């Protein structure tokens, strides 16, 4: 089974993405979003730009975890979720996972441009095949 990914040339260097839908159970939000395939990220997290698009009210959420990044610490709350991907074979694969939601206000307007991230909590369930020179990226198992 293969989940097709896409190479986004709007990033320098180009970056691998997958298109997903996410059901955030406690928030009762069903969203579709592109996720950056980031093997450097421990967990899947939805960042500020997408949170605004999702109209997710994070103001009353209490953060439960702090993630270290080059920009400092990001406070986040885990949300029981189901992430769905379309497979190349024609079908849907679902992954149960706690998706993290960035709870603090966006520290800088430019950070709204950052994509939400598919982290190793999901990527490690698959084999990631990535060849930018061939324009190919997919998750397989």
């Amino acid at each position, binding site marked *: 089974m293969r989940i*097709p990914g*896409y*190479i*986004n*040339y*709007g*990033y*320098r260097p*180009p970056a691998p*993405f997958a*298109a997903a*839908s996410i*059901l955030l159970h406690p928030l009762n*939000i*069903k*969203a*579709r979003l*592109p996720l*950056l395939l*980031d093997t*450097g*990220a421990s967990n899947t997290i939805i960042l500020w*730009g997408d949170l*605004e*698009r*999702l*109209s997710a009210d994070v103001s009353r959420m209490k953060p439960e975890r702090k993630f270290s*990044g*080059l*920009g400092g610490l990001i406070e986040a709350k885990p949300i029981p979720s189901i992430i*769905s*991907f*379309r497979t190349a074979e*024609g*079908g*849907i694969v679902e992954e149960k996972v706690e998706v993290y939601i960035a709870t603090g206000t966006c520290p800088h307007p430019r950070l*709204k*441009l*950052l994509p939400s*991230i598919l982290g190793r909590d999901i990527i490690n369930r698959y084999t990631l095949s990535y060849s930018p020179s061939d324009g190919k990226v997919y998750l397989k198992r």
Partner: protein
Amino acid sequence: MSETALTEFNQDFQWFLGSRKELLPKYEGRWVAIHSRKVLDSDKNLTELTKRLKIKGFKPEQTLIQFLSKEPIEAIL
């Protein structure tokens, strides 16, 4: 989430990535909402764009919305 809806979202994302050069002259510096491989609306302000989409009957959370910048985004997360 239906398979059809997720397939359409994949197609929209693929279309956006493949159409970046054509879209840039008109939409540079703007958030662009895409549905069925067409630009629905755009705005420099993401909040304003999502408000208008709701008024038009679209669900922003299920619509592909991407920012178009001439310079590729560079980031270390």
